[in-house]
């Protein structure tokens, strides 16, 4: 609103609150604020009356009482004697697990598909178009359910892996065998992977009731250290190359630096693998990943990848053809043109929709409730809400948590946007 600041001062009249543009905005804001506050007071008042009517109160004390139910997938220890708060944590971690895995997979698939859609291979380009259109135009919920059904209907039951003495005697093979040299079994319930075990672990401690494993920390530290040393090595090699024109051979040094320390540490801790073995009803030992997790991750990734692919394609197409032609003229080969010329520029266009896609993925993890994946919605907003009957508290807490997660992702997006913004005019 442009105001003439040097207008002669009139005496103030009440009607100026409506007619004078200088004051009108204050009037409007005042009224709006008043109305909104009244509205909220009305809501709060209603809530209090309703709660009193039903003899309920608001309190979060229930979070510290015994949960009493079991959760099939847990990243930190949990039993049915744990508290509802612990169940909430488990749910939150499960949400993160799916969100992170799906973001990663969606990016990989999406970028690949987006590039392949522009490929000059007729068949592949068509196939990718079909994939993108089919996945974008059918509800995600359907994909989640279908993927889950496919897993549980087409994979063999654990019993099929059983080899009995009679079968060996008769020379029969079991109906199903484990993949990858008998280390991985994908049954219709879960994916069973070998787990690393340590003979001489470094121990650990509990931090805020979340167990911290020192062995894992140590391994990670060593890996990060190695990578850092390797980068220094390469930097030095580059410096020498630029100074003298000769590049010292580094590959064996890199290999040494990258692998030897880790291998030494792991051997010192006594690393060996625990393979899943069929015992009783199920595979025991190793990691067992429930199909609700796998199906949810795959379905969300494939669905979101179709959106990512579209933004990747749009990003690449947005780079004018002159750029790649110039690169060809310089004698760059197609894949180097893509990597060195087109992609760096396209990223500016691609990344913002990609991050908002990450936001969508995080929100879409709540659909896991349809296949009973116990994420935050499943524990806090599902079983806990149900068993305690604390709808208001559970729903408010859950919305708050999702809101905080979303706002964090949007903050990252905004920071990125400002950092890559073209400094124009």
């Amino acid at each position, binding site marked *: *609103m*442009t105001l003439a600041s040097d207008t002669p001062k009139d005496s103030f009249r009440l009607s100026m609150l*409506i*007619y004078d543009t200088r004051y009108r*905005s204050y009037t*409007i*804001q005042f009224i*709006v*604020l008043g109305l*909104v506050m009244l509205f909220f007071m009305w*809501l709060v008042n*209603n*809530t209090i*009356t*309703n*709660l009193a*009517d039903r003899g309920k109160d608001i309190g979060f004390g229930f979070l510290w009482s015994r949960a009493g139910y079991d959760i099939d997938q847990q990243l930190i220890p949990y039993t049915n004697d744990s508290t509802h708060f612990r169940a909430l944590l488990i749910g939150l971690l499960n949400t993160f697990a799916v969100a992170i895995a799906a973001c990663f997979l969606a990016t990989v698939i999406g970028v690949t598909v987006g590039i*392949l859609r522009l*490929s*000059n*291979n*007729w*068949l*592949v380009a068509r*196939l990718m178009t079909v994939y993108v*259109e*089919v996945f*974008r*135009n*059918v*509800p*995600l*919920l*359907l994909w989640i*359910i*279908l993927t889950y*059904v496919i897993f549980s*209907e087409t994979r063999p039951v654990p019993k099929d892996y059983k080899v009995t003495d009679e079968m060996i005697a008769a020379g029969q093979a079991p109906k199903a065998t484990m993949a990858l040299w008998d280390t991985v079994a994908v049954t219709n319930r879960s994916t069973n992977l070998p787990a690393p075990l340590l003979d001489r672990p470094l121990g650990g401690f509990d931090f805020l009731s979340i167990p911290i494993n020192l062995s894992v920390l140590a391994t990670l530290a060593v890996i990060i250290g190695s990578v850092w040393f390797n980068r220094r090595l390469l930097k030095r090699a580059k410096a020498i190359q630029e100074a003298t024109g000769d590049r010292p051979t580094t590959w064996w040094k890199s290999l040494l630096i990258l692998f030897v320390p880790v291998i030494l540490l792991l051997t010192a801790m006594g690393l060996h693998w625990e393979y899943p073995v069929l015992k009783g009803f199920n595979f025991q030992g190793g990691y067992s990943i429930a199909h609700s997790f796998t199906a949810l991750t795959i379905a969300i990734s494939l669905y979101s990848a179709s959106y990512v692919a579209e933004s990747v394609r749009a990003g690449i197409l947005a780079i004018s053809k002159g750029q790649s032609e110039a690169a060809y003229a310089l004698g760059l080969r197609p894949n180097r043109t893509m990597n060195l010329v087109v992609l760096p520029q396209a990223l500016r266009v691609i990344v913002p929709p990609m991050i908002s896609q990450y936001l969508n993925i995080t*929100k*879409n993890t*709540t*659909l896991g*409730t*349809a296949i009973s994946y116990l994420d935050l*919605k499943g524990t806090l*907003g599902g079983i806990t*809400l149900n068993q305690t009957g604390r*709808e*208001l508290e559970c*729903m408010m807490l*859950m*919305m708050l948590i*999702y*809101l905080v997660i*979303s*706002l964090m992702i*949007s903050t990252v997006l905004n920071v990125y946007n400002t950092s890559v913004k073209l400094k124009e005019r």
Partner: protein
Amino acid sequence: MSKSSFVRTAMIAPSLPPASERGVIKWLRENLFSGPFNTILTLVAIWAIYTLIKGSVPWLSNSVWNAESLRECRDIVIAQSGEEATGACWAMVRVRWNQFLFGLYEVSEYWRPTTAFALMFVALTPVLYYGLRRPATILVGVVSVLLVLALFGLGTDSGHILMMAAIMAVLTAVAWIAPKRLVIVTILFPLIAFYMLWGGSVWGPVGTFVGFAIFALVWWISQRFVGVVVAAAVGLIAAAIWWGTLQTAFTTALHTAMPIELLYIRSDDFGGFLLAFVIGITAITASLPIGILLALGRQSDMPIVKTLSVGFIEFFRGVPLITVLFAANFMLLYFLPPRTNFDLILRVIIVVIIFASAYIAEVIRGGLAALPRGQYEAADALGLDYWQAQRLIIMPQALKISIPGIVSSFIGLFKDTTLVALVGLMDPLQGVTKVVRSDTAWKGIYWEPYLFVGAIFFLVCFSMSRYSMYLENKLKTDHR
């Protein structure tokens, strides 16, 4: 003159290019096998297509269309193609198609939602082709024919078919004679559709309409004296007085005098794709104006209005739709006065409107942001006030830019209507499927309903997205 010549006098026929450079082989070589990497890709693609076909074709080719239960289906497949064969049992769709489309809606009243659906296209005609005689007439005509055919297919009684055919004929004629007049249908469509779907006494919607008329009248008279915004508030108060106090008396009186009514259908009977369309279309139309206001609020110079808009938008964009739906189920009744009680469907529609308006607001903000600053300055220079500038200059352009975004929001919303099953409504994907599977005859059926519902969703969403792409190209006037 017979002498040898050093230059050929007759042209020899051009020989064909080498085999690898012509016809199918060339095409194959260039498009599929142009290098080792491409060859591998092609082989992988062929393998993927082959597995897909190998997995699905026997199952599809063994389809059974006539059976009364899943077991009967399986028996037929085994009898036809041997012990190990599997086959799709589309008989389920044949028996239960009506629930997938209409839920538990009264069977004899199927013509009502169908007509409402057809009228929606008539209402859309002026939006799509304002004042264009030919396309408008073609669209209305085609819709009319399809409607009559559909009504025949649904087994509607001939009286209603004749009535609808007459109405549609009149509309087609209007589209030919005075295509701009169809706007009346657009304006009245919400009332008509509401009445067609729910039924009851005809005077309820009429009373509501009178309220709007009062609003418009009061606004028109008072806006000259007090300005647009205040006039709207005054009009709203006048209309609210009508709705709150006088309307009931008015409608009851009219109803006793002239009881014209359709069979009243309860919201709980809505289901299947009918429910998905009702939620999706209501939410998108209602969220458009709210979204525009929010977007304007977010761009406003007034800090309080801006903060409130930003807070509203970010909150609803930050939480997943499921939590909002559950909130509608669990929390909304806490927030309303004690003993207020209304339908779950209505509650769901309200929260979906709120949810969608936050997204629409962002789409429209994108449109507003894309406008060059010069447009605003030009409007100011012409001496237009805020609302005039918005109405005459800013919004027409911003909305045009936002159309693809709005359509894709709608597609997203339409797909998201499947989530209402999680709060117990009968959506086509999970709600109806659950009902079907709880029938002892169809227990254990799972691929067929999902594929059927998925195919319909695909058809609807795909055609909408294609249409929006077409529109985007058509409206592109900047020729960049």
